[in-house]
């Protein structure tokens, strides 16, 4: 398939194109450090995991459609249930925002790439390898089956023999490196690489949301990494962190897991709200009401989310004061979310929105997420939570907030930015069909689950007895799941059909406000020939009709367009106000990120199989790649 040619801006950009182009063929594919290619890769991989996780869900719902069903036995069910959760949160949802962030952040801040392009490539390769690592468990038959949180002591070696849980613990630790490195990259990029004039209070809301997400990642990820490492030390090295018989405590595992786990769900919610802000502003053609309040809400949500983790443990017999504190904090976090919702509603009431597909998903998000947020407020109330936690009520709650609050925004973002990324317009009708299937399917699948929880159905059960009053709601839920699946298949079809149709997309099909819409669809490899001059929050809306965005192609006498040495130049500015521009030289494509990731994969395999030779080889490869990291011309 040939990519559509980006529109050229004159002969002077020919040199830029040559310098920034990747090597041809497989070599280029393996060595690229271009944030756009990496972003697309993240998207395709994460989307594939979405479909795999969805398939797992379909199997679960098929089994639960009837009481005492024998489609899946307990072992297979528990494996699929575990992998469904793990895949959706860790291999789809979180990396998907790496996809969006990677692709869009440099464009929205007017930069040529991320701050650390090779680290960016490393993040992707680690993500891919850790996903493959965890799924390799299916080939060995030892699939993780302890639930996606893998609570000790069920997951200790005594109660979970075989390698299944080792795949989980090592895989999660390995993947955590990718996420953490990505977080660092986003923070530095956003702090230092904004185009001159883009002070903090002129940053697009999506960029704010990625910055918040990245800061959260920095502090949250160590906790799950530690949980996984300590679990593995208990399992394979005879230690006793979580073993009550050896002086350890199973609740310590829960603390470490949830200190990450709760912020994690906001890590996948906050950037979603960033997407929604961009989509609504473009569809209504008005800036989002109350920018400063929305930013405050984003940051506040990020902060508060670190003080909520004990609400996952309300049934463990916590002291009264502790439980009430975490209950109050969990209620409090509804306030900044409410602020964002009303900001969007206010914006939408300023002008009639266009009902293109991105807007439909944004509306679906508001309706669905508000329901999920409401049940969230309910479960923040300790006695209610103690009644229905670990039942289908809470399963319904989190699917409402995750599908409503994260997946629908992702779909809105897909439909919104597809033209920019591919240079092709999406079909007019498939998107709308997909939306309705997903929206309706979602409600039919998950609303009945609130009721199932209330009438006593616990979660994570592979079957249930006839005559408990659970049959009808389960059947309805499973039918809904089928509709939901059709919806996702429609989206997949739309992605492919739109690509095939190849209807060219203009630079700015929506008339939106931010910098990515000023360049061609798809953008040139170097993004911007010169740095864009930004004087407000809506640089594109400041332009007169027919006017193009002004850019500056020289910094202190040095050209950003011509360079004899074939270097990759980018501009760096001061942290707060984005003044004081300097030129920096960016790293060029290289194999080292791929090799380092592979070395880490070998170390993971070695830990799993307790194989010293592989460990040594992996360690050597990792160290060598580290050593050679900064070297190598293109």
């Amino acid at each position: 398939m040939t990519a559509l040619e980006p529109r050229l801006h004159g002969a002077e950009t020919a040199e830029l194109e040559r310098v920034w182009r990747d090597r041809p063929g497989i070599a280029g594919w393996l060595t690229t450090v271009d944030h756009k290619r990496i972003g697309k890769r993240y998207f395709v991989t994460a989307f594939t995991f979405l479909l795999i996780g969805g398939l797992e869900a379909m199997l679960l719902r098929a089994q639960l459609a009837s009481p005492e069903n024998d489609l899946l036995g307990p072992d297979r069910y528990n494996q699929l249930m575990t992998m469904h959760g793990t895949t959706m949160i860790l291999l789809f949802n979180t990396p998907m925002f790496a996809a969006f962030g990677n692709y869009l952040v440099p464009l929205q801040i007017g930069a040529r790439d991320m701050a650390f392009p090779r680290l960016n490539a490393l993040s992707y390769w680690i993500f891919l390898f850790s996903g493959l690592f965890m799924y390799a468990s299916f080939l060995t038959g030892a699939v993780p089956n302890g639930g996606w949180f893998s609570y000790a002591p069920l997951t200790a070696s005594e109660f979970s023999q075989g390698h299944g849980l080792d795949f989980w613990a090592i895989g999660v630790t390995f993947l955590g490196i990718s996420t953490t490195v990505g977080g660092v990259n986003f923070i530095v990029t956003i702090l230092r690489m904004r185009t001159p004039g883009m002070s903090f209070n002129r940053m697009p809301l999506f960029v704010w949301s990625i910055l918040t997400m990245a800061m959260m990642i920095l502090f949250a990820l160590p906790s799950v990494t530690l949980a996984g490492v300590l679990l593995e030390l208990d399992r394979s090295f005879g230690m006793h962190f979580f073993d009550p018989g050896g002086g350890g405590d199973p609740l310590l595992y829960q603390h470490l897991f949830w200190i990450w786990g709760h912020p994690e769900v906001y890590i996948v919610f906050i950037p979603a709200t960033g997407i929604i802000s961009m989509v609504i502003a473009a569809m209504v053609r008005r800036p989002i009401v109350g920018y400063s309040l929305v930013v405050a809400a984003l940051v506040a949500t990020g902060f508060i989310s670190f003080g909520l983790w004990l609400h996952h443990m309300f049934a463990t017999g916590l002291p009264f004061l502790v439980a009430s504190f975490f209950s109050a904090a969990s209620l409090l976090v509804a306030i900044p979310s409410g602020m964002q919702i009303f900001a969007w509603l206010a914006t939408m009431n300023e002008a009639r929105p266009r009902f293109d597909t991105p807007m439909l998903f944004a509306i679906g998000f508001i309706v669905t997420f508000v329901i999920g947020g409401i049940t969230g407020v309910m479960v923040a109330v300790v006695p209610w939570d103690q009644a229905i936690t670990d039942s289908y009520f809470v399963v319904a709650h989190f699917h409402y907030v995750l599908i409503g609050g994260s997946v629908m925004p992702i779909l809105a973002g897909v439909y919104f930015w597809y033209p920019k990324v591919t240079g092709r317009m999406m079909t007019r009708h498939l998107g709308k069909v997909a939306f309705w299937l997903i929206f309706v399917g979602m409600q039919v699948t998950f609303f009945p689950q609130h009721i199932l929880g209330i009438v006593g159905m616990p979660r994570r059960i592979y079957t249930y007895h006839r005559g408990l009053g659970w049959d009808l709601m389960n059947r309805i839920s499973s039918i809904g799941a089928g509709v939901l699946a059709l919806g996702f298949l429609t989206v997949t079809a739309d992605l492919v059909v739109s690509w095939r149709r190849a209807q060219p997309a203009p630079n700015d099909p929506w008339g939106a406000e931010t910098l990515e819409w000023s360049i061609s669809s798809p953008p040139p490899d170097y993004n911007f020939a010169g740095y864009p001059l930004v004087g407000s929050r809506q640089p594109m809306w400041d332009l007169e009709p027919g006017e193009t965005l002004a850019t500056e192609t020289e910094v202190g006498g040095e050209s950003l367009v011509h360079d004899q040495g074939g270097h990759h130049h980018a501009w760096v500015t001061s942290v707060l106000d984005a003044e004081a521009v300097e030129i920096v030289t960016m790293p060029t494509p290289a194999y080292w990120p791929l090799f380092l990731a592979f070395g880490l994969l070998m170390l993971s395999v070695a830990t799993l199989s307790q194989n010293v030779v592989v460990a040594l080889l992996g360690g050597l490869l990792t160290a060598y790649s580290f050593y050679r990291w900064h070297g190598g011309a293109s």
Partner: protein
Amino acid sequence: MAILTEATLFALLLFSYFYLWSQSAQWPQGGVESPALLGVSLRTVLLLASSIPAQLAERSLKRGDRRSFVRYLSMALVMAGIFLIGHIQDNVRDWHRFRPSTNAYGSLFYTITNLHALHLVVGMTFLGFVLVRGLRGTVDSRHHRAVEVAVLYWHFVDVVWIAVFSSLYLSVRFA
């Protein structure tokens, strides 16, 4: 940035340490004796002091004084090396008293102190790289980013040790 993440990791480990302590009838568990203070206190002083030559080395390089840079950095590395050897000796000596597999106290003690030691080794490696570059001339008074980062990381390793030392060695004696 990376330092923030690593700091959080140690904070969580120390949280785990104090949490399990609060849940245990006896600490250290299983009648294990609290760690001896003399040797480790001396080592601690040495390690914390090594931050001084590290900082002085950075300053010398920025002034263009390559000789002092090499001298100070080597001093810091030697002090760190002594700490490391002492740590390994302690581990060997303690091994017959208790192990990571003895109980949760053992698991935590060895994991925390050795994770710190790992960071120490990484820090020494950074300093070593930078020393080599100093000798070769690839860092100097104008290009010294790598030195700043390595010395900053070194200070971080020291700060973590203060936290670990207080939590694992001092607090058991004074609690």
